[in-house]
């Protein structure tokens, strides 16, 4: 069990360099062993016999939009919203086979790689590679681009961490920057429902229904502008979310008018943000859906 500070160890602020004694952990953790043939075989066994069936049983996933990536046959960067620890294993179970076998996950260096046992488990089961939340360092960038150049695909959560309150968070530019640097397409993904099954801070998993919506691949811009590309990725994910509560055409109309509802919720006090999430739910437990979401005010 992962105890919270002060019962558990404190997390390390991103802006503070790690002392030399701990340089083999965090972003400096060497996870190359996790891509050895033996580790890949072990991971495959674990996924097919344990994690995939369990995750599917808990989430009953519905996958939409796969047709949008059917034509794509090259390594890609999958960028998804993030609200639960279930997101990574779920996506590893639903991402098509041609990418799944050569997929690594960008894991928060300060969270998944702060102790040796956590780093080992993360690397073995998810093929996780440590990466900073705030900005991609030279070490992380070199490692990720090397893997992408070697034919691996990457799963990354551009928000940098799970949603603290159910609403999305602003995106970091890391995914866009890596895509430009490695010249790989970005496939936006929207995951709906995992936040109700296992939200941040929850100690118990509730079964429920999840939808994963695949978006059309986005190719890096010729001008190399990572900031605008990051915005395009964020907009695509928001449009995928809009599709789930309206319809494809309505979502396209809104996108065309720059009126796609924001994933980050209303700019309002904390209680109103919570109210907007929980107050509009039906009372059907984790299987329920948010009737009034997303927030209807344009960004």
């Amino acid at each position, binding site marked *: 069990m992962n105890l919270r500070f002060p019962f558990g160890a*404190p997390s390390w602020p991103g802006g503070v360099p790690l002392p030399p004694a701990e340089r083999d952990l965090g972003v400096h953790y060497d996870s190359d062993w996790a891509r050895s043939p033996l580790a890949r075989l072990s991971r495959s066994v674990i996924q097919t016999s344990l994690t995939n069936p369990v995750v599917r049983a808990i989430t009953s996933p519905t996958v939409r939009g796969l047709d949008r990536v059917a034509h794509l046959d090259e390594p890609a960067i999958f960028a998804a919203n993030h609200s639960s620890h279930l997101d990574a294993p779920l996506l590893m179970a639903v991402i098509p086979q041609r990418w799944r076998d050569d997929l690594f996950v960008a894991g928060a260096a300060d969270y998944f790689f702060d102790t040796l046992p956590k780093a080992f488990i993360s690397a073995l089961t998810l093929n996780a590679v440590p990466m900073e939340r705030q900005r991609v360092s030279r070490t992380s960038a070199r490692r990720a681009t090397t893997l992408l150049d070697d034919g691996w695909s990457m799963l990354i959560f551009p928000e940098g*961490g799970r949603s603290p309150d159910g609403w999305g968070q602003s995106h970091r530019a890391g995914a866009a920057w890596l895509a430009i640097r490695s010249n790989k397409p970005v496939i936006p993904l929207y995951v709906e429902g995992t936040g109700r099954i296992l939200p941040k801070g929850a100690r118990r998993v509730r079964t429920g229904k999840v939808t994963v919506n695949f978006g059309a691949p986005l190719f890096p811009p010729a001008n190399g502008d990572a900031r605008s590309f990051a915005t395009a990725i964020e907009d695509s994910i928001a449009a995928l979310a809009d599709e789930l509560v309206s319809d494809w055409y309505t979502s396209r109309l809104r996108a065309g008018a720059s009126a796609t509802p924001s994933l980050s919720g209303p700019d309002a*006090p904390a209680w109103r943000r919570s109210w907007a999430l929980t107050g509009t739910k039906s009372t059907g437990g984790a299987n329920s859906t948010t009737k009034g979401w997303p927030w209807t005010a344009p960004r």
Partner: protein
Amino acid sequence: MTRPGFVLEVDRSTPPILTWHGEGYRLERLPPGRSRVIYPPEATEALSDPDRAIREALLNPLGDSKPLPELLSAGMRLTIAFDDISLPLPPMRRPDNRQRVIEAVLDLAAGAGVDDVVLICALALHRRMTESELRHAIGDRVYDSFAPSGRLLQHDAEDPDGLVHIGLTDAGEDVEINKRAAESDLIVYVNINLVAMDGGHKSVATGLASYRSLRHHHNVKTMRHSRSFMDPEHSELHSSNWRMGRLLAASGVNIFQIETTLNNDAFPASAAFLQKREWEWSLRDRAGFVASSKALSVMPPRSARSMFQAIKAPHALTSVHAGEVEAVHAATTRVVHRQQLVDVQGQTDIAIFGLPHICPYNVNSIMNPILVMCMGLGYLFNLYRGMPIVRKGGVAILSHPTPWAFHPVHHPSYIDFFEEVLSETTDPAVIEAKYEERFATDDWYRHLYRTSHAYHGVHPFYMWYWGAHALEHLGRVVVVGGDPKAVRRLGFSPATTLADAFEIASDVVGRDATISHFHCPPIMIADVH
């Protein structure tokens, strides 16, 4: 090698930050991306042989002063004045700096055959110290040598026969100080310079002065023009004291100044987590925090207060300078700054000040609501150089239980100030004009100050003036976790949690306000550029 101060930009990986809350503390999570935490420098290195350093300082004075042995002779009148209970904070372990220095001075005086020696505790308008407090400050040897024969005195700012009017400064300020000191051949003043405000001419001109003299710089106008009073070069409080000190020197009052500095080692090893950065907390630190927090949450306030007041800091002597007042003070201030200055870039919309259990005026006492205001807006707010860490019109968030509780012996006039004055107005200028003189000249308060252990009748006014600059500067003050009635009486907004405080603050500074958390104690000075 000790690490300098540090400003942490809060991100999502930042653990919750320790925030003082009176006789307790909390871990508060700050909004990432718009918050920063200002950490004090770590404790600088202590002098390896303090007694030798003191002797060397007495023999090698700064400025145009002669070595102390040359100033001592048989038949002279020698007065040794020393700082009172308000310094240092928390009180330091024995031996106190004052004991070390006074013993060294007395050794030299005895060698020179000086018989007429009197020790005076420089109280100004503070309460008289108890025997145990005096013994702790100056040591049993000194106490037992002077107290029984009546040669250990506590300054009495209301003794008509014990004061002498020296004259007026160029600015028309009365200078009236302790008669015994003024008429001595030499005053040796022994300081503990905990912050940059302490020492210099303020030692004698304030510590041994009367109300008639103090009112010229302990007033609203002076405080509003001291930005801050922790920055001597921009402090009207200091300017006034310097004018008075120079008048004293010109009038033939001889002062041999001794100033000592301490490092930032404010808490014993068992509570080391109180002065460590949260992400460096060891298992022992975390266990200490959890155990002490749980114990304090079920402990009666009186017991918690006793426990905290019993803390004796392992402060260590880091420098000692002696000689002419201004030369000594300049050297001392450099050492204080080396220990306490932290570079901070720019101001923020909100500043969070977690208030600890102690301030200069509640040692072995209760931090009543007026002292909460003084500690937050007087002391912590003013621990800056350049400009405050919070912008003009910004919000200060104080964290303290702010109980509606007063020590009836130590703070009798505070009770009436709180009930009678603050229920009418919280405007320092109106308070000063309408009420100060009546409290300052009240016979009952004067009697308690002179014969009991009470702060002077005017003292709560000074505490309020201490925060006058902050009150003028800030758009709102919010107190987290305080008694709502007491907080409202102070004119502030009560909030149950820090999140509530941010909500309240958003009315003034908006939703995306930037935040500074002032991680004090240990003491630091934010050098804001």
